[in-house]
């Protein structure tokens, strides 16, 4: 099978002389108020990409065009932005990643609808990379996680809320209004206006979605996104195909959370394209896996004792028996019972509760968590042996569990 050369796909992120010139669409905000300037302010880039001696492809913009009329800052301003350079240094980004690409990562599709200047394509790539690394980490290190917990953990690591908080932690500020005069180091988005409803009418990709069927876990794996949620807008998720054609059309605005999510994803994609797979994985480990997540708190059992007995039956253990280990204040207002769940002579779990039943359920939940949260020692992930590290490490197949208990 021929290997995919993703880095060749990123030719548009290379230095500008290798790019195919494209027309730049003006900011509709300014179109409304400065209509008289519009007819001469729309300029097209050179029609031929053969001229490679002049690296500044922004030269073709009419110099008389005010920066305010551009929907996002021209790329040439990126090298003079102090905020951008500071952000680049603060994140310890690889030096191969130029400031121009970092500036592009900060332009949301709601600010600049042109896919040549916004971060939508980078965000798609970065989303896949983030999802891949997160899911391989979770699957290889916690092979018995139930699917719903896996979705929740994925959401906690690389979900929109996590990425939003990471953007805040990185010190990325949001511009009040997008435009060409804005500092390229600010996150640019056109904000959702208060009167605008969040349009959820997009294609979810599910069959028979008009019937609003119950979404089972299996169908969530097949049809929904990496977090098990409905795909909100199929057109957005499938590469902005609609936006490319109608470049002047302004879609609804975005929220800070959406724009931050796209920025972080685009940044990961940019690191991947410019610095390679290893750098992208290192960036992921340093910024995402370093965040502590308590997986044991993601569980929510409805019938823990029954799940446990099913599990024991499936695994061939003796059926679990709850035994009272100790108790205090049985006749008082606050009694405490400590109950252990035993399978034969092996104690599977232990729990304390105010009643015997509560302690028994807690003990069963603890036993289930002990089973589901099993983590093999020295677990490897597939990306460890990808690329040039093939000689150094040898792939040890990851443990694959037969799955969770379905009751």
């Amino acid at each position: 099978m021929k290997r995919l050369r993703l880095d060749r796909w990123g030719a548009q992120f290379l230095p500008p002389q290798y790019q195919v010139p494209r027309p730049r669409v003006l900011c509709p905000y300014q179109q409304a108020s400065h209509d008289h300037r519009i007819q001469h302010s729309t300029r097209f880039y050179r029609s031929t990409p053969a001229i490679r001696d002049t690296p500044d492809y922004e030269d073709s913009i009419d110099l008389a065009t005010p920066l305010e009329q551009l929907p996002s800052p021209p790329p040439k301003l990126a090298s003079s932005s102090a905020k951008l350079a500071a952000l680049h240094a603060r994140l310890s980004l690889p030096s191969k990643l130029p400031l121009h690409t970092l500036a592009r990562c900060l332009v949301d599709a709601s600010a600049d609808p042109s896919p040549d200047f916004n971060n939508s394509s980078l965000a798609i790539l970065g989303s896949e990379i983030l999802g891949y690394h997160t899911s391989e980490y979770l699957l290889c290190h916690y092979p018995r996680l139930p699917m719903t917990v896996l979705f929740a953990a994925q959401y906690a690591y690389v979900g929109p809320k996590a990425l939003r908080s990471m953007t805040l932690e990185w010190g990325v500020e949001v511009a009040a209004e997008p435009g060409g005069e804005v500092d390229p180091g600010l996150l640019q988005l056109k904000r959702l206006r208060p009167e605008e409803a969040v349009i959820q009418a997009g294609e979810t990709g599910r069959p028979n979605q008009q019937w609003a069927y119950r979404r089972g876990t299996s169908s969530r794996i097949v049809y929904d996104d990496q977090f098990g949620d409905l795909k909100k807008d199929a057109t957005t998720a499938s590469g902005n195909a609609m936006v490319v054609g109608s470049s002047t059309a302004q879609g609804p605005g975005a929220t800070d959370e959406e724009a931050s999510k796209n920025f972080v994803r685009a940044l990961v994609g940019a690191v991947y394209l410019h610095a390679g797979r290893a750098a992208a994985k290192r960036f992921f480990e340093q910024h995402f896996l370093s965040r502590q997540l308590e997986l044991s708190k993601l569980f929510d059992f409805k019938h823990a004792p029954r799940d446990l007995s099913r599990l024991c039956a499936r695994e061939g253990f003796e059926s679990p028996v709850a035994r009272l280990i100790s108790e205090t204040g049985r006749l008082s207002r606050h009694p405490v019972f400590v109950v252990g769940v035993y399978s034969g002579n092996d104690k599977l779990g232990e729990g304390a509760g105010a009643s015997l039943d509560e302690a028994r359920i807690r003990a069963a939940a603890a036993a289930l968590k002990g089973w589901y949260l099993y983590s093999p020692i020295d677990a490897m992930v597939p990306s460890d042996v990808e690329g040039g590290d093939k000689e150094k490490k040898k792939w040890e197949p990851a443990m694959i569990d037969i799955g969770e208990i379905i009751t």
Partner: protein
Amino acid sequence: MKRLPRTARSVDLLLDISRPTSICRSCRLRAAQQSALSTSAIRREGPVPFTERIRKRIYGTENPPGQEDPYARNSPLRQTPETREELRVLESEDDLTVQKATPESSELANMYEPANSWDSLEWVGGEDYLEALKDDEKPYVGFMHGTKVQDNDEIRAALRRAVVEVYTLHYAGREDLTDVCNARHNDDDFKSLLDRNYEWLALSIKEPRIKFAIVKRVMQLTGIRLSDYAIQTSPTVEALLQRLTTKPKPKKLVEALHADSRFANLQNVKLFERRVTPIDKEKQVGRWKVIEEALVNRDLPVTGHQ
């Protein structure tokens, strides 16, 4: 009863009749009447001081032995023989002036006529007065060059000339090297000294005589004053030249910062040509165009007052 000593009053000047004065006699007489404020008459001590009379009475003779008055200002105890001789000469001169002045003052007093208008009076002060004071035949020429030399080449030529002249005198064995300043400069042979050979710049001028002469000469030729600190911290001719030819001062702070190479390599530092105003800050976050449009829609002034 002895009269109490009285502090000098301005009117006392009028009372001294023996002094030659231009004040008329009637005014002086009136002043003398007004000054007679004391209840007791002035008791004249006469030619013999009180202490002397006491001494005479103690000794019982007209010429008592010993010093005349140990506390007097002119007491012989306070005088060295030299000062005593000087004092004697001065006193004799005082007598002469007094003898001269007395007839003169009376003569002047008789000739005095009060002026009725200022036309015939001598006029002192004003521009015409200063013009009249000027001596055209021998105009004043200052030691230093009239205007400061600005051209760096000219300054270097002047310094080279000063160095050559001073070392010439030095090797000729002249004692006073500052004689070079006696030659007045003329600009023609001044410029011709400039060449592209810079070896003379490395000359040491640590010897104070030579350094003083060179500095004096170059200050005379260029009109540039050097501070003591600049002179002391210039061990060579080149250092002196650097002190003389200062770099042009940048007009704005940002020019100086742009010239600083430390900032050129810092990407996270941005230098602005002018003050970053609140409008600039709003523009940087993109809010200004919104504000501007809202103000225009409401017919309000965008900047300033209406």
